[in-house]
């Protein structure tokens, strides 16, 4: 099977769903680019978003379906919600998740609550695509993950894929889903490659992926942290420590069964999330294990997260800030040595 980068896999998922359904419409800032200069060759699709993820879609589908917007996120997210209720399947790009604060009301109080609050007569089948993650030297306002702000809110579904095939299959599901879905893309994963099936094969939301088998410790890794967990696991294997890596892939709903059955086997859990530590996905998953997996636990549920600080810019500080394979390995060893 041909390999694709995460970026191209997402582009393909959008292209295929747009071909299949004329009501799939994209909104975002410079998701095509060149607005106002269409008569100038090379203007249209000059950008495809800051990372080129949507490049080429405007050329194929036109400006009606690939809508470059003004810098009015609350406005166009609200519009996507309204459109979604009457037949549109909007895919709205929030250029960086760090900007969530300017349109959070639309997601939290409208998209998430309307079906419930108004008695179940209407749905909001929209997707919010947004870019997260540190390690890009992008500073405190272009590096946050903020998964948990959305996972906290009932009514939203939350997806954060690690690999290219998962990104494609899960985005297809997200667009076809009748509920609002927040789809996180990690800027440091865009160029990662994986064999990706041709055609529109959906991967159902709510199912995790066991990325590595192991008997001693279960490592639950959020999005990019799967990369570091893999590196840590390889090193630990040399010391005879078997690490099982689980990528939940979606966080609302969450594949509790896969997590708990792995912990049943290993008796130890380390949750890795590059987010802020407080009220994070790491805390959420650790609490789940401490409640429903307690009987199986032979060691404390450990977490590897960022410190309780904004994301620093300077490389040495940011490298220290982010979870590393070394820190993951250290925590895994702690879990293994606990009580010995």
């Amino acid at each position: 099977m041909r390999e694709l980068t995460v970026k191209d896999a997402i582009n393909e998922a959008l292209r295929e769903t747009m071909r299949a359904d004329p009501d799939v419409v994209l909104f975002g800032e410079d998701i095509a680019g060149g607005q106002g200069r269409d008569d100038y060759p090379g203007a249209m699709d000059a950008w495809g978003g800051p990372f080129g993820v949507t490049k080429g879609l405007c050329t194929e589908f036109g400006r009606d379906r690939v809508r470059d917007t003004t810098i009015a996120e609350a406005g166009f997210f609200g519009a996507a919600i309204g459109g979604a209720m009457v037949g549109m399947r909007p895919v709205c790009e929030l250029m960086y998740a760090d900007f969530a604060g300017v349109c959070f009301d639309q997601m939290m109080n409208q998209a998430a609550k309307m079906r419930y609050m108004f008695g179940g007569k209407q749905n909001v089948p929209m997707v919010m695509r947004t870019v997260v993650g540190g390690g890009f030297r992008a500073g405190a306002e272009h590096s946050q993950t903020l998964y948990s702000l959305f996972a906290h809110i009932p009514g939203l579904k939350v997806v954060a894929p690690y690999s290219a095939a998962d990104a494609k299959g899960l985005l297809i599901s997200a667009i076809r889903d009748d509920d609002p879905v927040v789809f996180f893309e990690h800027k440091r994963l865009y160029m990662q490659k994986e064999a990706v099936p041709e055609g529109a094969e959906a991967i159902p939301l709510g199912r995790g992926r066991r990325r590595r088998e192991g008997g001693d410790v279960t490592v639950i890794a959020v999005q990019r942290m799967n990369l570091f967990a893999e590196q840590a696991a390889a090193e630990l294997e040399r010391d005879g420590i078997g690490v099982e890596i689980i990528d939940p892939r979606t966080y609302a709903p969450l594949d509790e069964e896969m997590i708990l059955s792995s912990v049943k086997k290993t008796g130890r859990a380390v949750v890795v999330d590059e987010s802020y530590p407080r009220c994070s996905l790491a805390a959420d998953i650790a609490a789940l294990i401490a409640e429903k997996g307690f009987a199986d636990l032979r060691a404390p549920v450990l977490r590897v997260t960022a410190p309780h600080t904004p994301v620093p810019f300077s490389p040495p500080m940011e490298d220290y800030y982010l979870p590393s394979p070394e820190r993951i390995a250290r925590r895994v060893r702690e879990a293994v040595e606990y009580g010995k």
Partner: protein
Amino acid sequence: MPDAGVTEWMYRCLFRIRLFEERIKQLAADKAVPGYLHTYIGSEAIAVGVMAALRQDDWITSTYRSHGHAIAKNVDLFSIAAEIYGRVPGVCKGRGGSMHISDFDKGMLGAFGIVAAGPPVALGAAVQERRRGSDRIAASFFGDGAVHNGVFHEAAGLATHWNAPLLLVCENNGYAEATATDWHLNTENVAQMMGAYAMPAQTVDGMDMFTVYEAASAAVARMRAGGGPELIEFVSYRFSGQFEGDRQDYQPAEEIAEASKRDPVLLARQRAAQMGLDEAALSQLVAEVQAEVDDAFTRAEQAEWPAPEAALDDVYVSYPKEQIDYA
């Protein structure tokens, strides 16, 4: 001018709202219903006139002050009353309450508790209808206080940009909570603000339902023919408090007295004969509406309470049940 059928509907609708809201005030005074209650008394002509200019299949967004909009969108009075009581036959199954009376099947996209949340939502529906080739339009109702909120401006700017068939209906009822509109506006009126978006806008009397109807009809006709957005500021007066229980200590007695001279119901009565409704016909109509309202509340009061577990339904179209219920 509306034809006889529309005219009769307008009178019926005007009284439905007024008599419904008067009952609500009574129930509030008696503490007979739970939750916050925001009545529409004083602005009835706006909902009636605008809805008369719209089709049933046009979309609207409403606010926490939602009773009047829902009634004028022909949402059944009983299902509104039942919702306010929090009962099963309520239009939102008792999940929304008075601030969220919205019936999607009747063309309501939502009734929002967040000021200015409605305009962008209505905008999106307008955009989708037009790109599909339908001539349905969308109207968003909001208050004078909402025009200071950034979301309103973002929606207005995008509406012009997309030439969307969006009617922005600003209900200027003189107050935003306990703050006077003449104080909170930086401009003479709201219409003046729309130059920022190159959007046609006008300030119109919101007390006479026929004046409202005329202004709204002209805008709607333009939009059906492919035109873009327009804002109409209808000037009314908030006779009740911001919500039931508000003592209105900040609304001068003379001001209220002055405004009452143009009470929308009074004006409608004065124009009845001219509109072809004689005394007898009018009092018969009012009696019928009163009976309708009484019946709606009597039945609502007796309607069944939801099962507690119904709190767990309708969060998602699809989601694992055990991840909803953590009890």
